[in-house]
């Protein structure tokens, strides 16, 4: 123990330091350089990965992501997980550089638990949303250098005054936007947004009224459409039987849909 964690705390709180601050004090969290203009030559091509979407349906929030990771025109990996569980009720889905995003998810996961354990209460939804925003802001120096852009979606279930699912998307600087119906980010997102907007406005049912199978079908169709025009998006790999990763946040926590279930809906409604 290099320093007692609580010497004299003017804020009456053991966690005047949040977990990222603890990591920085110990030299365990890389600090991004000051934001400057982009480096001229982009000879280094970072691994990136793309197209995630989330929307509210009758059973909570569905979050889906394709599995492809790319570096430039090269497909690096076809089974990347971009839909990450942060705690029992929160999911962060990522588009951008996986190295940065996974590290961010790890920091975030530990931050929420560190807060609960030290403060003996769960962090509020607003606090969690803000924590991710701060991590993105701290990372902006890397973004400006062209090597660490992350644009996440955050879905969670709020237990407070009015229990309901909440859904946010972010920009690379850390601004958070709460949405009522759906969100999509990544290079394939324009197509996905088009589909979700169309479906929500003029479909047979609003997204919020879809049952689970219908919601899965829409998610698969949207990702397949995105993959049609965007090389960075894996969509559904029919030959390799690689399906998108789909998770659902509801009152009872997070459910990861088994591949067999997704394959079933795919066969019935998409293929």
């Amino acid at each position, binding site marked *: 123990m290099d320093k007692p*964690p*609580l010497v004299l705390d003017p804020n009456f709180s*053991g966690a005047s330091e949040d*977990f990222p601050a603890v990591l920085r004090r*110990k030299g365990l969290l890389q600090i991004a350089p000051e934001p400057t203009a982009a480096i001229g030559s982009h000879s280094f091509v970072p691994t990136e990965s793309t197209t995630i979407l989330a929307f509210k349906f009758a059973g909570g929030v569905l979050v889906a992501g394709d599995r492809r990771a790319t570096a430039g025109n090269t497909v690096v990996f076809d089974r990347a997980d971009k839909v990450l569980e942060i705690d029992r009720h929160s999911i962060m889905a990522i588009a951008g550089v996986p190295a940065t995003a996974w590290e961010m998810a790890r920091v975030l996961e530990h931050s929420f638990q560190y807060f609960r*354990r030290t403060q003996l209460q769960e962090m509020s939804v607003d606090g969690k949303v803000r924590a991710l925003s701060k991590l993105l802001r701290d990372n902006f120096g890397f973004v400006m250098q062209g090597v660490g852009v992350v644009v996440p979606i955050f879905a969670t279930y709020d237990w407070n005054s009015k229990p309901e699912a909440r859904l946010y998307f972010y920009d690379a600087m850390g601004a958070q936007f709460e949405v009522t119906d759906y969100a999509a980010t990544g290079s394939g997102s324009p197509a996905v947004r088009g589909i979700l907007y169309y479906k929500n406005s003029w479909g047979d049912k609003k997204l919020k009224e879809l049952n689970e199978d219908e919601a899965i079908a829409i998610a698969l169709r949207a990702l397949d459409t995105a993959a049609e025009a965007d090389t960075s998006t894996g969509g559904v790999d029919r030959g390799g039987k690689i399906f998108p990763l789909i998770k659902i946040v509801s009152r009872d926590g997070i459910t990861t849909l088994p591949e067999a279930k997704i394959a079933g809906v795919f066969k019935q409604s998409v293929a």
Partner: protein
Amino acid sequence: MIEEPYRWVEAIANRREYIETQLAAGSPIAAVGYRDGILFVTLGRARQKIFEIYDRIAMGAIGHPGDIERLRLAAIELASTEGFTRSAADVSLRRLAHYSLSPVMKAAFEQVYGPPYLARLLFAEIGSSPKEDLFLRLDYDGAIAADGLTAQPRQRFAVLGGTRQSAELMEKFLQKEHVTDAVLPDAVNIALDAWSVGRMAMGENGTKEIPGRDVLRKHRGEQLANTAIEAAVLERDSKSAIRYRILADEEVRSGLQK
């Protein structure tokens, strides 16, 4: 001034006596292994005494709230940074206690110009099987007593008492009554009985023998009537990586035997 070794020994002895007096009124804590995990139980009026440290580690404490808080935060910080930089599987109670907390508590206790930690801690770590469970008691002077670290046959329980007499009697009681594969409600009853034994052994006029069942249950009933039960479990087969769960007072009381 303390110039000679003799004075230092005397100062340490005085300090020990002072701390023991301060801790004497602490409400006992029992940690018992049961079929599906490890259960922590205590009764208290004033403040929380059972805490989550990390995914598989819980802590019970008696002593001064300020000191407990410093040690608790240090333990959480150490476990969290280790879990972050390596993995949750690398966070170990054995290392936490032996290499970090114990030396700090010993140093604070023996530096007679500085304040010691007025705290006595009870940790448990749940493993993937009962054979890997660890119970560990850490005293204000850094002394460690563990169940599960050596080849010694395991008891699969541990207690924390304000006085030596209280703790010893609780241990004696549990050696007789504790069943390692009990279901949760049964484990709660045994742990509450053990707590009552420890409570009755406190103070100068405390009982020196394990009381009979009727006397014990009468005392327990009186205590339960106006004191809240504080209980938490570390569950072995939880779907989540986080094994710690607080049991609500009603949940505990629903399974109580008369």
